[in-house]
């Protein structure tokens, strides 16, 4: 037999199995619907939770300060905290990170390509000849290195130079969104503006990052850290240090080097815990994942049980179906169906049943999970990996629980089945 004929066989059988499955399922709509409900619920619960997790994860990523892949940060307080908040006292007791400490790191971190020191200050009001903002514009104090470490590029003008920072000059760089709103008619560079009533000279405007849906991503003004400290003093949460490693290859070494520098400067005894937080975007996401792992494992366990129960239901219905269709099986055998044809047909029927439930479950799960995205105003997430896995599991459930009924069907005696009433 040539291979073309083999394929033709295979296709004819597959098509017949499939249409037989659909005929059988539509002949008992209610029964089929009730049976696939179990699969639907099992798959739905996985997908809805995984979609929601994706959405949350995305939300966390969006809310993180946008550190590049080679950059990590050091703060007194953790950037985000998942789980219990009972540690706040420990963080509170820590010494503030100061400008001097930052400068020590700047001097000694040989594996870093850039070190920035930054502080966030109270929201302020910006006033120009043309406009006046609400008193909510974020005021950031930065050093020269912050621009590189934060991946900020200027659209116009320049970033701070060392003189701006050393002499604590009254200059500022604007975020793109802010620049547009307070200087609607032309270039802000070289113009004066007032921050909480004090005059500053605009030296540059940053390129927009504007990816976030939040919209106020670029609504800030940057002044030299020294200027901000002189004018407003060190805030309760201290400063932050940003370190960019030279290359991804030395990233881990760089992290260790900086950790060492900080511990030495703070005189932390060997073996004692760090008295500062060192984190990167990746480590934060990892932390989030760890926090949600329990939820994920829980949902996987629950839906596995649901799918198992659904599988037993499917097996039951398939056994009923085999009995009901004994005569049909006899007819098929009489006209030349082999055992494996009959077997394939019934397994196919179980798989189709499961897959219908699975597909509906995936669709509803993705829709359900994204209701969260809609509320959080983040872009919707589609967990493709989990969806594919979910459908795959459905097929496996169909095969596993369809095999016994199919085996029974395939081994019926043709003559007996033809006589069956």
């Amino acid at each position, binding site marked *: 037999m040539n291979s073309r004929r083999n394929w033709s066989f295979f296709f*004819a059988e597959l098509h017949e199995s499939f249409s037989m499955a659909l*005929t059988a399922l539509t002949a008992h709509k209610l029964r089929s619907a009730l049976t696939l409900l179990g699969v639907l619920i099992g798959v739905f619960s996985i997908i809805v939770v995984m979609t929601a997790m994706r959405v949350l994860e995305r939300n966390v990523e969006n809310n993180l300060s946008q550190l590049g892949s080679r950059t990590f940060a050091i703060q007194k307080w953790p950037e985000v905290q998942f789980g219990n908040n009972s540690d706040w006292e420990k963080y509170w007791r820590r010494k503030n990170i100061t400008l001097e400490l930052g400068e020590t790191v700047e001097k000694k971190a040989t594996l870093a390509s850039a070190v920035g020191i930054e502080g966030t200050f109270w929201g302020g009001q910006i006033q120009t000849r043309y406009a006046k903002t609400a008193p909510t514009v974020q005021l950031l104090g930065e050093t020269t290195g912050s621009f590189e470490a934060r991946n900020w590029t200027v659209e116009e003008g320049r970033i701070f130079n060392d003189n701006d920072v050393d002499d604590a000059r009254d200059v500022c760089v604007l975020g793109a969104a802010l620049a547009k709103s307070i200087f609607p008619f032309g270039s802000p560079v070289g113009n004066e503006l007032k921050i909480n009533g004090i005059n500053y000279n605009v030296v540059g405007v940053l390129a927009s990052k504007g990816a976030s849906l939040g919209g106020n991503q670029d609504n800030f003004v940057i002044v030299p850290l020294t200027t901000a400290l002189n004018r407003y003093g060190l805030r309760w949460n201290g400063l932050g240090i940003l370190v960019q490693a030279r290359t991804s290859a030395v990233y881990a070494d760089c992290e260790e080097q900086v950790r060492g520098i900080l511990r030495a400067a703070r005189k932390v005894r060997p073996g004692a815990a760090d008295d500062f937080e060192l984190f990167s975007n990746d480590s934060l996401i990892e932390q989030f994942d760890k926090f949600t792992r329990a939820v994920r494992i829980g949902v996987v366990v629950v839906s596995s049980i649901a799918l198992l129960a659904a599988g037993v239901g499917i097996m039951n219905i398939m056994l009923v179906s085999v009995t009901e269709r004994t*005569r049909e099986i006899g007819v*098929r*055998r009489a006209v030349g169906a*082999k*055992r494996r044809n009959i077997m394939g047909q019934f397994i196919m029927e179980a798989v189709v049943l499961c897959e219908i439930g699975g597909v509906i479950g995936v669709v509803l799960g993705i829709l359900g999970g994204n209701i969260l995205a809609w509320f959080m105003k983040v872009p919707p997430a589609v967990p493709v990996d989990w969806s594919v896995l979910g459908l795959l599991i459905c097929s496996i459930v169909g095969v596993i629980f369809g095999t016994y009924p199919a085996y029974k069907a395939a081994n019926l005696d*043709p003559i007996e089945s*033809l006589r069956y009433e």
Partner: protein
Amino acid sequence: MSLIHLRNISRCYQMGAETIHALRDVSLEIQRGEYVAIMGPSGSGKSTLMNLIGCLDTPTAGHYELNGANVSEMDDNQLAEIRNREIGFVFQTFNLLSRSNALHNVELPLIYNGMAMEQRRRVALDALAQVGLADRVHHKPNELSGGQRQRVAVARALVNKPSLLLADEPTGNLDSRTGAEIMTLFEELSRKGNTLVLVTHEEDIAKHARRIIRLRDGLIASDEKQAAGPG
């Protein structure tokens, strides 16, 4: 060479301690193109013989050759292939798939021999036309009369161009007029050169055949040729 060659065929059923001999040491030859009727009282082994000839069943003892192939030594898959290729069945109770239309019912044997879809459709439509049902191809069995259902069954039996057509009391569930119609159809098929073996209780029906084999208690009681029947 004869189409069917049975040598010392026995078929026993074990019912607890008792052994039922449905066929005892039956030897029989049927040539290509013959039209044979099998008669006999109820329980004499007619259906058992038909099932053996039709490769649905295998003998307890004896040797069976169909079209030169040794059927008595075939496994389940090979038997399925032989049924598909060489044999067309017509049953007393029609045995159509109730949820499928006439066309799909007739296509069924072709599906299991792997014929491509368009060709399958064409061949099945042809077979339905041959039994005079060209205008009923999309009807389901419950939308057809008894006679029409049996015609669909005949079309299904013919569609693979088998070397042998077997009918176990094909008119048993039909009134005499419709039964006569089906017999006319068989007559025509026989004239076209098909080999036919049919089981019947009725002498009238058996008269259509050229040869009548009578069974009694699992044995061949008589085997006689007769002149071309009426019609």
